[in-house]
């Protein structure tokens, strides 16, 4: 356990928090890069996923994009983007993060819309609701848990992946770890790893709260939903179904 304790004491040293390469600066970089990537990924993936789900078309694309995204190593994309004219700009990292944020959001938005109870949709149609009304008034509120599950998964993944930007000397908390490797300073490596893990867990917790609070049906449905759905890993459960 000494290794971990050394890492903790590195973290508690105020000197390591200040300055342009301190934990404080890196934390701010990490948060803004991740935040920007999440917003851009949502702006791209949510409309497409919701619209495809509403129309009930493009299911193969919406489901398979997640499988393809899983097979492509983030590190490879970062390295390839770094060798383009983008080089070291913050956009290199943001583009890579957006690319990996899109699949879970798109797939979950699509699946969420498709899994809306068909009876409810039929009833709404029978009441004379138009397409957009149906989307806003019925499908969206019912699909929110799964849609937010995707956003949550993407956010957690983006915050985690932003660490890898350090390998191409990009911004973010990962730099503490890589510079620790450069200096063969194990306490710094472990200290950096601890703060990165803490951030990931905090973000996961906050996103879980957010997911719960935006669900308009949470009071009536709490007991009925599968626990897996609340835990934010609906993709796997869904693939288990489709694979079977």
């Amino acid at each position, binding site marked *: 356990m000494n290794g971990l304790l050394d890492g903790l004491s590195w973290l508690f040293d105020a000197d390591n928090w200040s300055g342009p390469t301190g934990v404080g600066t890196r934390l701010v970089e990490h948060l803004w890069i991740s935040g920007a990537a999440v917003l851009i990924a949502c702006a791209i993936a949510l409309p497409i996923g919701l619209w495809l789900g509403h129309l009930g078309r493009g299911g193969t694309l919406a489901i398979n994009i997640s499988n393809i995204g*899983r097979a492509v*190593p983030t590190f490879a994309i970062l*390295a390839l983007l770094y060798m383009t004219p983008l080089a070291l700009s913050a956009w290199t990292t943001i583009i890579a993060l957006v690319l990996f944020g899109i699949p879970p959001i798109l797939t979950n938005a699509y699946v969420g819309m498709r899994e809306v109870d068909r009876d409810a949709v039929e009833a709404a149609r029978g009441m004379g609701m138009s397409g957009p009304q149906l989307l806003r008034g019925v499908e969206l509120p019912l699909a929110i848990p799964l849609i937010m599950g995707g956003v949550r998964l993407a956010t957690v993944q983006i915050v985690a992946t932003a660490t890898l930007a350090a390998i191409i000397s990009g911004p973010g908390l990962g730099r503490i770890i890589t510079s620790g490797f450069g200096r063969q300073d194990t306490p710094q*490596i472990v200290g950096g790893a601890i703060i990165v893990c803490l951030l*990931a867990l905090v*973000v*996961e917790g906050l996103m879980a709260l957010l997911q719960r609070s935006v669900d308009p049906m949470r009071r009536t449905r709490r007991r009925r939903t599968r626990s897996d759905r609340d835990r934010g*890993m609906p993709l796997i*459960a869904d693939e288990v179904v489709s694979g079977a």
Partner: protein
Amino acid sequence: MALSGPVHTATLTDNCLVRNDWVCGEYIRTRREDITEALGQHVTITVLSVVIGFAVALVLAVLARRLGWLRGVILGTSTALYTLPSLALFSLLLPFTGITMTTVVIGLVLYSLTILVRGILTGLDAVPDDVREAAVGMGYDGLRLLRKVELPLAVPAIFASLRVATVSTVALTTVGMIVNHGGLGNLINRGLSSNFHAEVLTASVLCVVLALIADALLLGLQRWLTPWRRTVTA
């Protein structure tokens, strides 16, 4: 003087390596040993991680089914593990296992657990109760019930998760380059630091191809294990 032309071009060969092209057959010809070695390491790390991960996940899933209170603990812990960035997880293991393949394999096993435990639990939960009761009535119990009845019926769900776990393990292995054991990730890292386009692209493409091959192999294995489903799924 008439000779100097061809001699000159022969010494300063203009091939894709010199031009630093993205796609370069010459790279594959001249660095074949490097590539094979990296590929071998990549496959070794992936196979070890998935096999160990599957064995541990199977035990955890069976335990979670026996002891209700353990279920939440196991699922919660493995989900938390999955949120940890790979770079940080490998770094946290560093003081214990050092710059070794063990560090990478332990990290990847932990990641695969999240997916595999869920998949196995989903599969076992979906076994119909009357099937289980019929088997118990025929004298199956304990391990034999699990091995002969429950696991075969859970194969589709288990393999779905096994495929997801394998594909993401192949991709994640590249990050192992931080402790010099990243298989193809080592090549990507080396190409990155020397601005060698062909090396980075070739290793990246190989990585994706490797994931797709592994996925196809598992699908084939699943078909072979469940002959009774072949006509249904086709």
